[in-house]
């Protein structure tokens, strides 16, 4: 945490991601950073956001962050708990999701993501967990927010494996592939926010977090990063946002009995 600013880079990332979620949106949430940001939104400006987890809960309102996608409180706090096939068939594929909130191990300049392998698929250097729900979330949600920390190993020039699709080769490639929805409209990192160029769909740095330099973002991106002419500085987290986030993380740690419970 930066002493003079009073918040960490992870905190500003989480708050920035949470702010993007409009009140009333129906949001398909992955565990980890996406779940932290989505629940922070729900506890601050977006009390009517509808959180859907792939394990079955629709309209979950957990009092603490789930450590897993199937934690009991997701179920007991939800409007409805349906089977996992129903979640994927009637709700995600059904076209009822406004926002898919994803994490990623690696991302390229067109917001395609890899969560499968580092190195060749048949002989991986690092075997990652795999697809999970991401390919169809990325394909079917109205729009997609991606949250991950910005490092050269994560923001790569060329993905060795595309697990889930962003804008493919850019331009109208996604549209031509027949995918509904807008695709990834924001990538929120610990350093700033990247959004796709309206025409080329290449990720462009449109906001840097307070105290972060453009050079810092460039240095942690393996491709030659485009920077917006209208680059903004992310509004610093409000005291109320920080208080809500910290309170959520404190309650979560107490409940789960370990401090690393929440990875935000």
């Amino acid at each position, binding site marked *: 945490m930066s002493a003079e600013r009073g918040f960490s880079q992870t905190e500003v990332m989480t708050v920035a991601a949470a702010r993007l979620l409009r009140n009333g949106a129906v949001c398909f949430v992955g*565990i*980890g950073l996406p779940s932290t940001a989505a629940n922070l939104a729900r506890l601050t400006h977006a009390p009517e956001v509808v959180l859907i987890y*792939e*394990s*079955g*809960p629709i309209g979950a309102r957990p009092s603490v962050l789930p*450590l*897993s*996608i*199937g*934690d*009991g409180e*997701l*179920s*007991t706090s939800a409007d409805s*708990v*349906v*089977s*996992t*096939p129903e*979640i*994927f*068939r009637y709700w*995600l*594929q059904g076209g009822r999701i406004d926002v898919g909130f994803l994490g990623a191990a690696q991302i390229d300049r067109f917001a*395609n993501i890899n969560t*499968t392998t580092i190195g060749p*698929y*048949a002989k*991986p*250097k*690092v*075997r990652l*967990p*795999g*697809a*999970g*729900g*991401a*390919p*169809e979330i990325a*394909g*079917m949600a109205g729009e997609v927010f991606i949250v991950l920390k910005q490092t050269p190993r994560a923001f790569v020039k060329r993905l060795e*494996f*595309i*697990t*889930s*699709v962003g804008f*493919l080769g850019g331009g109208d490639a*996604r549209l031509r*592939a*027949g*995918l509904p929805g807008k695709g990834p409209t924001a990538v929120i990192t610990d350093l700033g926010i990247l959004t796709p160029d309206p025409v080329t769909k290449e990720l462009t740095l449109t906001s840097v977090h307070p105290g972060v330099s453009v050079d810092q973002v460039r240095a942690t991106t393996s491709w030659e990063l485009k920077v917006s002419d209208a680059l903004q500085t992310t509004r610093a987290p409000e005291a109320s946002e920080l208080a809500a986030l910290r309170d959520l993380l404190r309650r979560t740690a107490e409940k*789960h*009995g*370990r401090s*690393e*419970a929440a*990875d935000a």
Partner: protein
Amino acid sequence: MARIASLREAVGELIRDGDVVALEGFTHLIPHAAGHELIRQGRKDLTLVRMTPDLIYDQLIGMGCARKLIFSWAGNPGVGSLHRFRDAVEHQWPRPLEIEEHSHADMANAYVAGASNLPFAILRGYVGSDLPQHNDRIRFIRCPFTGEELAAVPALRPDVAIVHAQKADRQGNVLLWGILGVQKEAVLAARRAIVTVEEIVDDLRPWPNACVLPRWVISAVCHVPGGAHPSYAQGYTERDNRFYGEWDGISRSRETFTAWMKRHVLDTANFEQFKRVFAASTGREAA
């Protein structure tokens, strides 16, 4: 018709070397005790099926029980990698592990197709993903009405499904609730099914439209309280989140893994003994 049996008997009689076995449970109700029993009985050459292989599949893979894994997300939820799974895929230890990899939506649909006795399922999926290039069981077909292209995946039809549930009655009817995952579909897609339960009661007293598996689709019901540990059974046990964290350390090296498995699984006769050893080694109850 379900018979009430010990887990040892059920696994002994219903699962053979080389079977396609699905242990399902989406974070909730994972049948860990049944997985331990497969390891104790030394089952080999299994094709393991599971959307989210977690600790129990890490254990089965690390103990060399599996020839092949069909899955969609293999990680320790909220913690990180499954080290035994990675060691098998990256270094073929203790034996090579063939993998067949899908997405969650695909596998959920494939179980539905299996339960529905259809040879395949269709879904809107995989557009732009590299997965179909590495899995020829993901194909594409055209809608005979609109001409649209859709993904097609073969039905999952395991030899055996194993799930954990909250309750059974003495006839073997099973009631589960909370996060249901794909358990019902897995049971109905499989040729044989084993259900471990927290409790066996005289009368299930299900509420309207509750998720009940009738006795006549189940091969055996086994009374194994806490049998989901470190997963949980809503209304009975809590998820042992600490153990998910601890597993990261235990499973990181082959040696600590092997020692843990020997002490907790191979050297215990059943899940009751496992629970006693676990309590002794951690200072807390396993469920």
